[in-house]
């Protein structure tokens, strides 16, 4: 558990739209929130175009789930995360039903959805984790 909590885990909530494309709704980790401007810039650098906002400032579209996973992995590497957890609306709703405190909710979310490990993460040693900024 100690090991788990020292890892930098990023949570990404996504949703498909009617055409089958995917959008990122929100993205955060326990000590940071990635706002839409940050995701927009990352999307722009990855795809060479601005996200297509429909009703909300959500990031996307991603053609399919693989495309979304690629972007999520890129984001995880970009922010030096240890892993990124891709959550559906249902995953999030289920976790919310079972938890009424912030830390519990985040711990629960870490065990849901599809998780991508950033194996290239440098400095996996104890000291680098302690002194990570």
């Amino acid at each position, binding site marked *: 558990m100690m090991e788990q909590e020292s890892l930098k885990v990023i*949570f990404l*909530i996504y*949703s498909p739209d009617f055409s089958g494309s995917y959008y990122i*709704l*929100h*993205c*955060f*980790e*326990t*000590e*940071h*929130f*990635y*706002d*839409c401007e940050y995701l927009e810039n990352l999307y722009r650098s990855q795809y060479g175009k601005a996200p297509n906002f429909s*009703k*909300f*400032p*959500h990031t996307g579209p991603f053609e399919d789930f693989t495309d979304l996973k690629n972007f999520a992995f890129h984001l995880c590497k970009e922010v030096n995360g240890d892993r990124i957890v891709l959550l559906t*609306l249902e995953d*999030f*709703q289920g976790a*919310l*039903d079972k*938890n*009424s*405190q*912030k*830390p519990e*909710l*985040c711990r629960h979310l870490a065990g849901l959805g599809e998780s991508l490990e950033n194996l290239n993460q440098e400095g996996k040693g104890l000291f680098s984790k302690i002194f990570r900024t």
Partner: protein
Amino acid sequence: MSLTTPVPRDEDTTFPGEGWFYYWKTSASLWRSKLSEYQKGGLVFVPLNWSFHSETGDHYDFAEHRPETDLKKLNTIANELGKKMIFLLPLGPAPFLPNGGLPHFLARTAAVNDEGLPQFAIDADGSINKLYSFYDNRVYQAFTKFTYQLSQYISRTGINCDIFGLRCYSYCRHQSVKSFMSDRSPVFEQSFARFLKARREEIEVDINSPEVEWLLRAEYGKTIESLYETNASEAFSAQWEGVLDAAFLGTSSEDNFSRLGNQHSEQKYSWDILEILSRDMVPSTVMLPARIKKTLLKKQSDELVLNSFLLNKAETLQDEDGSFFQPLIHFEIGDLPTSKSFLKHNWQSNGLLPFLKTTFPFSYRLRSGDQFKFSDEQEARERLTFFLGENIQKQNFHLMLKLFMSGGKVVLDRTGMSSEFLKKLEVFFIENSLKIEKVNFHTHIHNIILGEGRMVVFEGEKLHTLEPGKVFSFWQKLIETFSLRLLTLDSTDPIVHYWRTRAANSNELNYEEIRRVSLYNPSSYKRKFLIQLPKHFVLLKVIDALHVEVIPKKSQIEVMMMPEGSASIDFGVFS
């Protein structure tokens, strides 16, 4: 084994902000000491916690079992301490209560937001309050029973305080204010489908168009909201004072995830308070952790919200001359762009809002169409009132003409106005033999004068294609022609500031009016700026200056604010 004696809590738990008192969070035996320790003014707002008085829905506890449900005792203590207590009755999901305030047995269908996410809010101590749909008929029936039981209890025990309905909103820069009643849950969709079926025969337009669907959803939501409101106002008729709209900082969808990521920005919340005030709503900090509202945010909340805006709303505790500081409004802007976000043309696109935000920040009030009423005609005449042609309907058309005829200043952007109302406007000018002065400045402008009244009609769509500098100069020139008495801040950086006004009292006979600007620096940088002092204004005094230096100069004042600095400056206004 569990402790049965409630653990004494600190002030922030029982008084979370803006004079609110959470009576259920402390022992009834501590109410007197808590209320007597509270020194922020004579008003105490007590939100009513439905689920605390009724866990099962069959039985109601008003001082029968738990002493903390004894509202009569609470009211008596407040009266004895010289405090005026005001009850706030939530008329929909309340983000500050578990289950949004619903008794446990009614918390069945989770409310869903526009993104498809369950609605929730994170309170000051990090607890997650899930919100449930108020579109469930069982909820409405139980609410009716609760208001009936509560009204009987209030009448039986002779509780004499005012009651306001409370409508709860979140505030987000992207989506503006959003009602917590707004719902996309299956319960909402089912009842909306029934409403749609009933309306299908009446509506001739394409019911499948997103615009029409949006309007119908909004109409249905308003219909249900008004059911709850009517129910409560009838139950408490003698003490019912109307409805307060409160927007809770830190509760929008974006804020929720930002808070899950442990991120708070005091600076952002400082601006949010001003944005919410400009919508004529009560900004509430009760959901924010005490640690982030220790200094400036708390000061801002006390000065601008509790001891000004809420005093004004509660219309009580006036000082000896019957006047206290109220928000200074120069511009009334009808039809919020966000209220019909699909409209291509609005005050954002024609450049008015960007201009005002830069030049006269928060000296304007944004109203949605159905809020556009003037309780004080004198006040309304002194302001500049903006109408959007695309949203002109019979009611606001008549209101606009009435305001103009009684000496008011009106600006109408005629883009998108229906031919019916354009014709009516033309007939109105002809019937009253009004001379129309025509000017071309970036667009066609018509200027009409009737006694003290003035109306400017222009074609706002032409401004869309202009470069921003020209749009800015259009609004600058137009507003200058109205010769409003305005004070402005000259600064390269945005300064968190808010203007208020009050009538001069018997010791200030040289002045007609006293204006106060409250300045805050939530940034970590030093701020330096000037306040221009045109004729008719004089510097009176500097109040509560903290890390601020004010240097009076000829025709202007130089202000230097250190990080976390704050001050208020009073000006006398004379003819």
